């Protein structure tokens, strides 16, 4: 199997090392940017594996080659971008990491359009700091892609129920709290807000007329 691996985030680049060593992978190439992908002759490859990729693949790509990816949510929920942040802010501490197949629909608001099908899933714990979560996602992504390659080409696709709630991708301004916002939040809500915006994401902050206080790292002790 000849594979194109799409990744640019630190946590996802480590996954490539594991995927390219899988016995079913005869040849693989890593693309860190969309322009690197566009330069490839897709007919020379069998599969695109996308890991933490944020750009749409589009029909130009998906009409020529199959593509799979991993998404860190119990899809169809949280499929519109910023899934980690939105789940943590909603108080979710246990979720799924799933392999899904890409489709393309230019009218869709979702981060990755898909046909509501997943092949493999593992549990993902969202209770720690961002570095804990991303470290875990490196490992779960390795497991998911290796299981997919183990089972390929006899993949059993399972359908998930569609959800009508639209949870829009977070914007940079969503990371700013006013003093009034802070006074209305409890300790756990503040913890969830700040921890989900730790590095490598733009930090959560509080703003007043004189400046911005960035909360870069927090810890929570639950009695």
């Amino acid at each position, binding site marked *: 199997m000849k594979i194109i691996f799409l990744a640019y985030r630190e946590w996802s680049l480590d996954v490539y090392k594991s995927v390219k060593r899988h016995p079913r992978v005869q040849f693989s190439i890593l693309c860190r940017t969309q322009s690197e992908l566009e330069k490839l002759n897709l007919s020379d490859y069998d599969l695109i594996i996308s890991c933490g990729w944020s750009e749409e693949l589009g029909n130009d790509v998906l009409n020529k080659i199959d593509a799979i990816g991993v998404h860190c949510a119990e899809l169809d929920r949280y499929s519109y971008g910023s899934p980690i942040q939105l789940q943590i802010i909603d108080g979710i501490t246990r979720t799924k990491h799933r392999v899904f197949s890409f489709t393309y629909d230019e009218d869709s608001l979702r981060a990755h359009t898909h046909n509501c099908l997943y092949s493999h899933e593992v549990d993902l714990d969202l209770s720690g700091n961002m570095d804990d979560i991303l470290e875990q996602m490196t490992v779960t992504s390795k497991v998911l892609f290796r299981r997919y390659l183990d089972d390929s080409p006899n993949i059993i696709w399972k359908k998930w129920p569609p959800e009508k709630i639209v949870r829009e991708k977070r914007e940079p301004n969503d990371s700013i709290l006013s003093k009034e916002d802070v006074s209305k939040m409890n*300790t756990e809500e503040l913890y969830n807000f700040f921890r989900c915006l730790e590095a490598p994401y733009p930090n959560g902050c509080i703003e007043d007329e004189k*400046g*911005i206080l*960035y*909360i870069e790292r927090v810890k929570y002790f639950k009695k």
Partner: protein
Amino acid sequence: MRVIFCGYREWALNIIDEIKEHHFIESYDVIKTKEEFEYQIPSLSGKVDFIILLGWSWLVSDVITEKYKCIGIHPSDLPNYRGGSPLQHQIIEGVTKSKISLISISRKIDGGDIWMKENFSLRGDNMKAVFNNLEEASVLLLNKFFDKKGAIVREKQNLSEGSYYKRRTPKESKIELSDFSNKSLSEMYDFIRSLTHPYPNAYIEDEYGNKLYFKEVSFKKNK
């Protein structure tokens, strides 16, 4: 000159590492624990020019201060901020430009004669940055001290002036949620950064005993 350095904290040991190479220091010893101090100092033989204490937490007996020239660095512009937690008290009160003072160790806590002072910045997002400033200022001061072979006119402190503070306790690291409304974010930044590692971090505690600790922060002033 023969010098005995006493210190155990990382920043103190870094200062000793830098300064021990001064060309007027012919021999030196480093004492890192109270036990070593109590065992070795009374049994010292031969001439000792100075015992220099850096970040030393334990009282030195009159017997020793009368027999040897015992001097130490206190991280404030004495007689201001004598006593405990001088770094925290200054930062919390908004001091950014301070001095370190080289003083005789005496029965009066931080009340001995002043030998020299050196400028010292209290800026930095965390205590690691402040300790780096402290190291730089201390090396500069001690180099000047040894350049003069310790032949410096001492100045008595006027202890009716200045200020004295008690050592902070971990409970004083607590922030009330209402502080975010009642204080400026710049004040909150100073409070939190002064209590970053290795000190008991600033925290919010709710009525159930759950605690949110602030481990790292930064602040950007509005233009």
